[in-house]
């Protein structure tokens, strides 16, 4: 094992251990933060730094093989889908009227549906009512 190999090995382990540390920090934050809106931010630490560092470390471990290509593909997909999922969760909370303190200006006005839409919504809620 020459110097270069030890160097590469060291970098990969630093990346993997760093990724683990950020995952742990994200988990601690998700447990300790007081409400929904702050917990989302804690999880996004694990989502970006933890995921990127772990994938990078594993890529270096894999070397120039097919495994590395697959890991890069996994990394790219997580890089795009991670924030999209976070946005979907946050947006669902906002649409359902669950807002943090002092953000009432962003509350969506309640829409008054006409009779037909109300009937359709009720049917969606309990699709078997009166149908059997």
């Amino acid at each position, binding site marked *: 094992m020459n110097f270069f190999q030890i160097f590469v090995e060291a970098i990969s382990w630093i990346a993997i251990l760093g990724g683990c540390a950020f995952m742990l920090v994200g988990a601690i934050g998700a447990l300790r*933060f007081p409400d929904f809106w702050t917990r989302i*931010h804690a999880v996004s630490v694990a989502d970006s730094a933890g995921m990127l560092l772990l994938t990078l470390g594993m890529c270096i471990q894999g070397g120039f093989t097919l495994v590395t290509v697959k890991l890069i593909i996994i990394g790219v997909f997580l890089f795009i889908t991670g924030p999209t999922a976070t946005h979907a969760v946050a947006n669902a909370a906002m649409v359902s009227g669950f807002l943090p303190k002092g953000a009432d200006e962003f509350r969506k006005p309640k829409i008054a549906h006409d009779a037909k839409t109300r009937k359709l919504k009720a049917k969606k809620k309990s699709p078997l009512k009166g149908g059997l």
Partner: protein
Amino acid sequence: MFQTIVATLGLAALWLLMSGLYKPLIFILGIISVFLAIFIIRRMDKVDDHKLGYDIGIFSTAKYLLWLMVEIAKSNWAVTKTILSGKAPDSQKMFEVHVTQKSEIAQVIFANSITLTPGTVTVESEDDNFVVHALDFDDGDMGALTDMDEHVTAIETKNVGAVK
């Protein structure tokens, strides 16, 4: 037609990379699934006439990604300090950020970049504003987001919307 050929080749390459098994039966199943996927994509393209545009430059996007990595590292460190300090954050805030990108893909990149940097989450996209929630809001945040907005606008090619 050009897009269909590129998509077919791309899907086939992806399948070859992912599978790693080259028995005749598996191979034929792979070919069938690639053509099935292309068939479904073409059918769905007819249903909504919405053409996807990629109005971003390759090199500027690569440069932006490098810049984004630095930003992610910085804000990760900030949020990690907040988490490990043991105090509950008390300065969270929701606010609006003005969006200057014209193409849809650049707007998506901007919104995802905001969410990807820890400490800020894009909650809602309105006409030319994003509603953003920040964990530790201070006056510098707004400037940082405007700066990011300028960086994303810089990756757009000049003739946005010419194809649509």
